[in-house]
């Protein structure tokens, strides 16, 4: 359990001085909350990849802090209650305190390889894209590496569910790894290569591959069904209420049945779809290369509204009850009315927005290509 309060007044400065180890130094975060509100533990928050929060927002948003990381920030930021952590593209993990943005340290893996992370209490799961022992489980309470495993090249990110880690590898394998000891307990094999991350709901694992095929597996990684789209899939599927929502680089957004893989509807758009959608209530939101943010009705697939930015949409969205937040390569982060698509607010950074935004507690966080992490308060109160 979290024991941060005891160390509250000297832990923060201590943390700055602490050296970290994944193989060479230590990184200690004893105080991590287990409350769901404060956790954004992995890519798109849940195993089903919902990217949805229940908050409402008041605009304009108040800037809380902004910090420059030591190098380019990867696509995923995670939140561990009062901390935010992210991997960089040159192989380090960095973190800040949520409220004040104070650095809590840096783990330099010295691998020069992009690294992502996810959290499953009390473990921090770090994944290097390539290399020996590239999947690492670090016990935050004990401050020690619990195990590491070689899982091959992974372009996507780990999926954490129950006590398992699911990975889709570039060589076509789907792996299920036990968090307790890093044992690979199951493997499935595909002819294609996986560039995207999987999603999981009701013991059905879904992932798209570079041949444009959406594959589903059961909990034991036995294949269930496959569905072919027209081009490679880079986006992670979103699973919700027995349905799969996924965009393809063929420019079509698909809705499939989770159990059968049957196509329920397909909506073509003008651009190619690289990023994952977000689903909240009856709406699905995603961006495409034609500069456009699309909102579809999730039952029918009809386009409810569109919003045009000035360049390619660079991130997946994150949704609240009334707002869609999304970033673009025009260096602008947008807040759009979820019902109408009208722009409520925007923030122009000094770099393209490529890292996926998250919402944790009352804060919105995103990163830009100028190596900055930005934190805004969603509500003034």
């Amino acid at each position, binding site marked *: 359990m979290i024991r941060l309060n005891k160390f509250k007044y000297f832990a923060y400065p201590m943390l700055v001085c602490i050296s970290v180890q994944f193989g060479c130094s230590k990184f200690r975060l004893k105080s991590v909350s287990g409350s769901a509100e404060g956790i954004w533990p992995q890519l798109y928050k849940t195993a089903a990849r919902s990217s949805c929060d229940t908050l409402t927002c008041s605009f304009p948003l108040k800037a809380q802090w902004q910090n420059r990381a030591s*190098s*380019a920030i990867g696509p995923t930021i995670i939140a561990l209650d009062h901390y935010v952590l992210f991997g960089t*593209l*040159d192989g380090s993990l960095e973190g800040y305190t949520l409220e004040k943005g104070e650095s809590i340290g840096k783990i330099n893996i010295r691998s*020069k390889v*992009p690294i992502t992370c996810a959290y499953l209490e009390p473990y921090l799961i770090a994944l290097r894209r*390539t290399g020996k022992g590239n999947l690492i489980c670090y016990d935050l309470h004990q401050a020690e590496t619990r195990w590491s495993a070689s899982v091959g*090249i992974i372009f996507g990110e780990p999926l954490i569910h129950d006590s398992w880690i699911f990975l889709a590898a*570039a*060589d*076509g394998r789907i792996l299920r790894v036990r968090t307790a000891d890093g044992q690979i307990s199951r493997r499935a094999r595909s002819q294609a*290569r996986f*560039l995207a991350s999987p999603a999981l709901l009701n013991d059905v694992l879904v992932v798209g591959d*570079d*041949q*444009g095929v959406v594959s589903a597996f059961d909990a034991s990684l036995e294949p269930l069904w496959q569905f072919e789209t027209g*081009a*490679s899939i*880079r986006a992670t599927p979103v699973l919700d209420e027995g349905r799969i929502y996924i965009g393809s*680089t063929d420019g079509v957004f698909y809705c499939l049945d989770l159990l059968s893989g049957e196509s329920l509807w397909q909506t073509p758009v003008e*651009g*190619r779809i*690289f990023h994952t959608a977000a689903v909240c209530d009856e709406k699905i939101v995603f961006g495409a*290369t*034609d500069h456009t943010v699309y909102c579809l009705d999730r039952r029918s697939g009809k386009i409810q509204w569109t919003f045009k930015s000035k*360049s*390619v949409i660079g991130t997946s969205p994150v949704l609240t009850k009334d707002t869609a937040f999304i970033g673009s*390569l*025009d*260096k602008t982060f947008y807040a759009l009315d979820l019902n109408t698509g009208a722009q409520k607010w925007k923030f122009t950074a000094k770099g*393209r927005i490529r890292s996926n935004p998250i919402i944790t507690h009352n804060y919105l966080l995103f990163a830009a*290509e100028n190596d900055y992490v930005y934190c805004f308060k969603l509500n003034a109160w």
Partner: protein
Amino acid sequence: MKKYLPKMRIMKVRHDIFRILSRFNAVAVTVVCLLAAQSALGQFYFGRNKVIYNHFEWHVLQTEHFDIYFYPQMRALAEIGASYAEESYLVLEAKFNHNVSQRIPLIFYATHSHFQETNTLPYLIPEGVGGFFEFLKGRVVVPADGSVSDFKHVLRHELVHVFTYAKIQRIMKDHRILNHPGLPLWFTEGIAEYWSSGWDTQAEMVIRDAVINDYLFPLERIYEIEGSFLMYKEGQAVMKYIAETYGEDKILQLMENIWMSNQFSEIIKYTFGIDLKEFDQRWIYALKKDKYPLLADYDAAGRVSDKITRKGFNIKPAYYQQADSQQIVFISNRTGYSNIYLAPLLDEDDNPEAEILVAGERTSDFESLHLLNSNLDVNANGELVFVAKSGEKDVLYIYNIKKRAVVEQHLFDDLVSMYSPQWSPDGRHITFAGLAFSGRRDIYIFHRQSKQLLRLMDDAYDDRDPSFSPDGRWLAFSSDRGAFGKDGYYNLFLYDCIDNRIFYLTHGAFSDQMPKWSFDGEYIAFVSDRDGINNIWVLQTNGTMALQPLPQPSDSSQFSYLSSSYFATALSEHYPLRQVTFFITGVSDPEWTNEGDLLFSAFENFSFNIHRFNDFTEEIKIAPVAENDTLDHTHSSWAFKTIDGKGSTKQFKYRPKFSLDIAQSQITQDPIFGTSGGAQLVVSDMLGNYQYYFLLYNNARTRDEFLSSFNVAVSRVDLSRRTNIAVGAYHFAGRYYNRYDYWFWERRYGGYTALSYPLSKFTRVEASLNVRHSDKEWYYTSYRRKAMLVSNFFSFVRDNSLWGPTGPLDGTRINITLGNTLDIAHARVNFATVIFDYRRYFRLSNPVAHAVRLWTQINEGKEATPFFMGGSWDLRGYRLWRLWGTKLALVSNELRFPFIDRFSLKFPFGGLAFSSIRGAVFLDVGNAWDDELENMLGSMGFGIRFRFGGMLVLRFDVGRKFELTDLNHFYDYQKYDVDDKWFTQFFFGWDF
């Protein structure tokens, strides 16, 4: 870089700067020489000239993402280009999933001749270069050539490079990678071609030929053809294979994975899951599967027709009947220079010798014969008409074959370039396609007697390949004015010279070009790519052109871009259309003989040669009739999209703004000269017309010397006009050493100006004035001298040399310099300078040349500066610059020949390929002296030259030195004292 086939786009400029020196380098070298107060470096003071004929009044058109530089005469074309650039930006943004954060400068030229005058690159730009993207300022420079679709293609090709560069830069920055070789050239060019033109007829032609004739290079060995046109096309073919087999996203993934390894073969493995060898096997197998079955229905041209020529590229045949003998006139680059040849039209096995009628690329009259772009024609009187670039523009020449002389030449004020002139049947008119200053290409008719030039069209459509009918009434030509022209297709049209009307002749989504009437007017042969590759098709006119008018469309505004009305013509079964040849690779330039044979150029084994199809008219009769084209009556003419009024645009006059090109710093440590450190900066404007050079360094050995040891130089170079001007000022101080003065200390400060005026592409005059204060102290004698030195130099330079892999093989190079240096304050220095450097290259056969060099340098007078010689660059066998004197003379003879054509070394981790290792046998005689020449030194031997990495030539010589002390008996070989020992000398540098 492409050498032979039309319109290659290059990304990185990979010029051999030692081969193609421009007058810019001449000025720059002059600057360096004056600043260093040394005699000119023997390797660099020749070179051809980039002549600025036009002083363009540049304007800038700003669109959302681009700054477009253009001149007013081509405003319409610039606006079309601007619209297409913005359209391309959106397309490429989606393909790359990336954008370009800076504004992109686009510099447009209306013609290729204008493009060759650009200062955005210091090098001469060959005719085969279709455009480029350069890294220093991120400029894209694109010429037009009359065809808007070609212009758009080149523009998009270069924009692909811009996006590729931006994307890779971002990835490297994100991953903090400083040293990475980047993407291989075949990839960057392949993707640029594929994402701009997809898969086109030209690519199909080259790849088919490579597969069928088994010279395709796998990617594992593609470094052996680095920079070649074949490499470009193979890259394009690989992209097509990846897109069709794995999906286009895989191409993007290859780029996005670039950070994963320095070896692109590893990137392929990461991306595809198979190694490079396996990828190669799959890709090549797929090509073979696709191309081999074509042999069932298609033939190699050489198998079913007579091959008339064999050596080099031979193209553009023109038939000529002289008394009873049949002749052909054609263009060939078989010697390296492009020339117009005459040869008897004999049977294939007779292999006749061809005679050069017009020697191209050596004189300013025939700077370029447009090897691949312009046809020839000969009339019944034996008069050849052709076009050649001569100075600023193309000139129309009439050459009398019997007299072997040019009898007329015509230059037209409004026309920059001309293409494919053709005689009228009576020999009184010449028709051709002319490219105006605005960039528009239209058909013209020149009346020889009255010298009148008639323009038949005046619109933005591209019209070319005109050909008179035997009765002189009709002109058949190719144009993109048809309904499919907006997609880049060319159809054939007829122009009625009597009624001044234009008619469709063919119609469809394909390209028909080069129409040629048979002698009896029964047929029109033309080249078409209807079946995916250029073959000869024939339209049978039956000797008449009965025309069927159509009702005029009600909306006449759709014809606002046309000068004439349109009617259907031979689009009916009364005029059968037939495909007569089924050659597997491309053909072009059909030319009838009066006996019903057909001559044409065929591409085979990566070369163009002229073939003859005997009894072609009989072949036509048995060829199956194809379905006639139909005219879609509702199809309106098309207009070019322009940027005018769209989005946010601004236009204003260009004013030079300067930005940094190069900044570098350097620290050196030398056991003799000690430590020095400094920096150099170069800034220039966007068009490269104005350049500033800054040099700053310090070579102090102690703190006390710091201020006095500052060396600084500033130069300004103006290249905007025909006369290039440099001015500068400098301060140099420090210790120097040479074997003549030994150690001395000198401070020099002053200013200089230098001019270079090109008389033509091959010849220029240069002048310079350098005024400086010199304070010199010799350590050996403790003598100190102050002087106010004024140096004047005047040079005449001529260079029309043709270069082989390691040095010149043909042509001449001359540098004659006269000068004087005078101390105007104290009269302590006063010497005259004469430099005479003459080099002639006698071509003995294609790869073999005898090179002769006559060189003398004289400084005569008070405190005359010595010259240095010795070493691999002049008197071989002697140590580098160990002979000195105020006078030197050298005679060199060298026989240059090929030694090893190619060998390659293959390692597990990669390979090295070496080509064109050349040999030399040499004899050098010369010496340097002050007052009296007492002896002559010499060497003789043999050597090997090896070009490494495209730029560096390594030289290894073996020989024996000799000395002649009795100069009066130089003819008596016994007077020569030859060394017993052999010397070896290894160095770098081009052959003289």
